[in-house]
């Protein structure tokens, strides 16, 4: 998270003389607490990475080791676990996450990317349009309808999933990816709220100037509001992407064929019923699923924090 300029230091160190020793001790204690807590939170992910580069025989070790033994096998083993080895005829010699006759990681990745692309595009466009209607136009019934928009945020998905499944079945969408992305083209309460807050901070003089230049509402929306709201639109896109990428219950309920599985759903197939889970492959696959989200967060975190705080969600 980016540090903001107007940061408040809650426990400032007393500036009185003779307190310097106390100050140093406090600072040391503070760093010890910060490092301890961070390690505790990072440990599971570090352990995941560590397991993902070990050979199967070394995954069940007591006491635990952080690196494979001998360490020199690490690059080769990492390659085998993440990629796998394929023979000249295309047959899999060593099972890895990418080349795996049992669990089709590339296919699940493709499905997830299709759903993510279609669904994020739809969510951003539809929410942007609807938020304009609530933020920039004055009409009878706007207030009460917006209250309904906010109320929909309270309805949890498990309440809707059974009847939604029946509706999608009636529409003939089951057995395809449609149930996961078509509903995203009809905006969502949270995103409408977020974008509306952002639009309201754009000065109305811009609209008026554009109207004088002969722009209609569509022109104002397309030429002025949209370009000015890029940070907020990025937040909507990022949030929705992470939601789609991580969603488990939706795919579990609506995807009826294994060829349509997304990564979140495919991941659990490593957990074999027989009890001999390939822990190193499972951890490598988990690392691969987590990686894009982390990279995306690091790339966008400045825009992300700006869009959030300007959207009035801060404090």
């Amino acid at each position: 998270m980016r540090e903001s300029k107007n940061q408040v230091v809650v426990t400032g160190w007393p500036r009185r003389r003779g307190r310097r020793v106390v100050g140093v001790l406090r600072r040391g204690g503070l760093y010890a607490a910060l490092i301890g807590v961070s390690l505790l939170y990072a440990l599971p992910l570090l352990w995941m990475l560590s397991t993902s580069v070990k050979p199967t025989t070394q995954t069940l070790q007591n006491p635990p080791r952080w690196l494979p033994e001998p360490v020199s096998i690490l690059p080769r083993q990492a390659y085998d676990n993440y990629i796998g080895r394929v023979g000249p005829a295309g047959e899999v010699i060593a099972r890895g996450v990418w080349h795996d006759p049992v669990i089709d990681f590339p296919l699940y990745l493709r499905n997830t990317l299709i759903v993510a692309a279609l669904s994020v595009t739809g969510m951003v466009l539809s929410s942007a349009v609807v938020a304009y209607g609530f933020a920039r136009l004055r009409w009878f019934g706007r207030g009460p309808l917006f209250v309904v928009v906010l109320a929909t945020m309270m309805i949890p998905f498990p309440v809707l999933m059974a009847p939604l499944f029946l509706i999608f079945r009636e529409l003939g969408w089951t057995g395809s990816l449609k149930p996961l992305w078509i509903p995203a083209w009809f905006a969502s309460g949270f995103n409408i709220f977020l974008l509306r807050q952002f639009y309201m901070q754009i000065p109305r003089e811009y609209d008026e100037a554009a109207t004088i230049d002969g722009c209609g509402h569509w022109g104002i929306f397309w030429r002025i509001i949209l370009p000015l709201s890029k940070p907020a639109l990025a937040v909507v896109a990022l949030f929705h992407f992470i939601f789609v990428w991580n969603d488990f219950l939706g795919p579990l309920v609506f995807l009826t064929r294994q060829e349509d599985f997304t990564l979140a759903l495919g991941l659990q197939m490593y957990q074999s019923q027989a009890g001999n889970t390939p822990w190193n492959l499972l951890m490598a696959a988990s690392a691969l699923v987590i990686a894009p989200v982390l990279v995306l967060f690091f790339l966008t975190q400045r825009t992300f924090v700006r869009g959030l705080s300007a959207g009035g969600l801060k404090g």
Partner: protein
Amino acid sequence: MIDRSAQLEIRRTLRGLLWVSPWIVGFLAFLALPMGLSLYYSMTDYSILERPLWVGLENYRALWDDPTFWKVMRNTVVYALLSIPLGTATALGLALLLNHDVRGIGVFRTAVFLPTFVPLVAAAMVWMWLFNGDFGLVNQGVRAALRPLGVEFRGPNWLDEAAWNMPALVIISLWMIGRAVVIYLAALQGVPRELYEAGSIDGMSPARRFWHVTAPMISPVILFNVIIAIIDAWQVFAVPYVLTRTIGGPDKAMYFYTHYLYDNAFLFGPKMGYACAMAWIQLMIILGLTAATFVVSKRYVHYAAA
């Protein structure tokens, strides 16, 4: 005959409705319709294969007599009662700790925030591994910590012993608390500095300063996070589902409300009507708890003039 101003008003309203029409269509098709259907199905016997058969309140009465329903209800309530207070305390504590303006603070904040980006399934898998009774890092850590004290403790089989399931799940939920921490952090930074300066002049201890200055100032945000936590706790599904796969693990100790609803709707029968009755009860509970939280909190939440 309609006069010009009324005509203008109608045109404006139609234009507004046109702009928000994507949401209206989605609301009707994917929210209002399923909720209405769900209410109707909850009063029928419906196996999908045959037409729904009207049974009145029979599903609700059957739920009342269903021991599994009470089991999942109890598990969910216990999970909520443990994870919400512990989660609130942990998130607030972490936010206070991470609110220091020291070198490298960004790295520490990132470490606490990272787990929220981990897909729940991947998180469950990693923790299943960490909680393994023999080889898991958690027990190895417990053993290593107790050995110098002369205590030989194997550590529990977190996921195979019913009594340890709930603590394991709560620990995982505390690990994924990052979103609440970020919201608290933003709130702490919004507390005016002058308030603390006044407080330190009075020679307040840090604990008193927290209770008398910080807590009241950020109380609306605490309320917001608690409500989100209530809604989330009632939906807990993916992590226990992946950890147990079959219904709820040993003694159904990890069988939760949403999981039982899912099983009824898609596995057992399926019993769509039964599942829909569960859905409506869940909705009423969440709405009721949220409303109650608002009412109870009125005395404690302080809304500063913006």
